[in-house]
């Protein structure tokens, strides 16, 4: 079969030798350099990939850290706000109760004062009325009455008048 295509051993051998020689020379001069270049490039690429992986891992780590820090800070802030709210509430309540108590006290004192003032005014009024009555009676009768008698009369009169008045404190 091969004879039809002109194959014979010396020619075949020549071609094999030719190719092997070419391969040797090419390998010696061209490929070494190109493959070294290829190796270098592959190394660079794999190194780049590695670097990228490391960077990605770092980034991931940083992200997690940041997130943790943010959530921590948020929690702290929430706590702080809650505490502040509570303090404010407490303070408000305290101030409120204080103010209420103060107001109570002020109003009580005012009431007492008013009562005392009224009593005093009542007593003065009573004395003045007595004097006025005496003076008017004296003028009316035009005669001297001894003072003790007059006074007693007037006071009796006043005592008679008194029960019609509503003020209770004046009785004592």
């Amino acid at each position, binding site marked *: 079969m*091969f004879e039809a295509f*002109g194959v014979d051993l010396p020619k075949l051998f020549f*071609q094999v030798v*030719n*190719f092997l020689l*070419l391969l040797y020379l090419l*390998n010696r001069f*061209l490929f070494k*350099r190109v*493959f070294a270049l290829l190796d270098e490039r592959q190394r660079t690429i794999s190194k780049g990939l590695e670097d990228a992986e490391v960077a990605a891992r770092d980034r991931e780590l940083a992200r997690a850290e940041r997130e943790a820090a943010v959530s921590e800070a948020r929690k702290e802030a929430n706590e702080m706000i809650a505490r502040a709210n509570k303090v404010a509430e407490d303070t408000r309540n305290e101030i409120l109760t204080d103010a209420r108590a103060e107001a109570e006290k002020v109003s009580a004192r005012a009431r007492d004062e008013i009562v005392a003032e009224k009593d005093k005014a009542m007593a003065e009024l009573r004395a003045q009325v007595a004097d006025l009555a005496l003076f008017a009676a004296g003028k009316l009768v035009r005669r001297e009455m001894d003072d003790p008698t007059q006074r007693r009369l007037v006071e009796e009169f006043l005592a008679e008048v008194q029960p019609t008045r509503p003020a209770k404190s004046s009785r004592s």
Partner: protein
Amino acid sequence: MAEEEGGSLIHVAIKAEKLFSIGPFEVTNSMVGAVLASLLLLAAAWYVTRRAQTVPGRLQSLIEMPVEYIAGITAASTSRWRGYVALVVGLFLMILVANWLGLLPGVGTIGLKGEHEGELVPFVRPAAADLNFTLALAFVTFVVFVWWAIRIHGPIGYLKELVGEPRYMAPLMFPIHLISEVSRLVSLSMRLFGNVFAGEVLLATMLALTTAVIFVLPLAFFVPAVFLGLELIFGAVQALVFALLTMTYITMAIAEHEGGGHESDEEHPAPSPA
């Protein structure tokens, strides 16, 4: 048969023709083609290495590009790629240059009138249009992948591989495996030879058809040019195919035991026969 017709316009000899002889050794025109291709490649390699620059120029990157491409593909095949990448790239470059050299004007057309019947014997014949050349390359490939198989498996392991898995089927399977191994050699060489030779015949036919009648003679300038372009592609594709098949055969020889997971099992019996 073709010679009998004599006046036929289509003439492509299937054998490489003898140019002259040195002693008993015949020098054929396809040898000249192969040597020319080799010299061209060496010149290119010398050019590239002589003015090696880290940032390659246009011509330098033109030469380096296919080398890097094939080497890149080979590097992705197995972890032992450094052991056979030179062969794969060398085959690719050699076949590529030889094929494209055959397309140059003058190759196959300039020659001497031969001994028989005044036929033209061209000085240069595309190397791959001679079965000697393709068979030589296929033979190198064959030896290398069998060598790798033996190196990885050990000779006994390789024989076991040929015998096949069910041991009792050995009488049937061993010849089949043997034939399939040898058929790789034949199919590799025949594929390249067939393609290139058919390409030569095709070009000759197109030229003959367009020059047969004076009326269609202007077509002779265009029609073969189309097929020349086609042959340009085929030349590159066949070079790539040869290189990739070589790579695949070697990869199969290596990876059969690398991927199987019983690499460690094979490591122990391997040294004993070696």
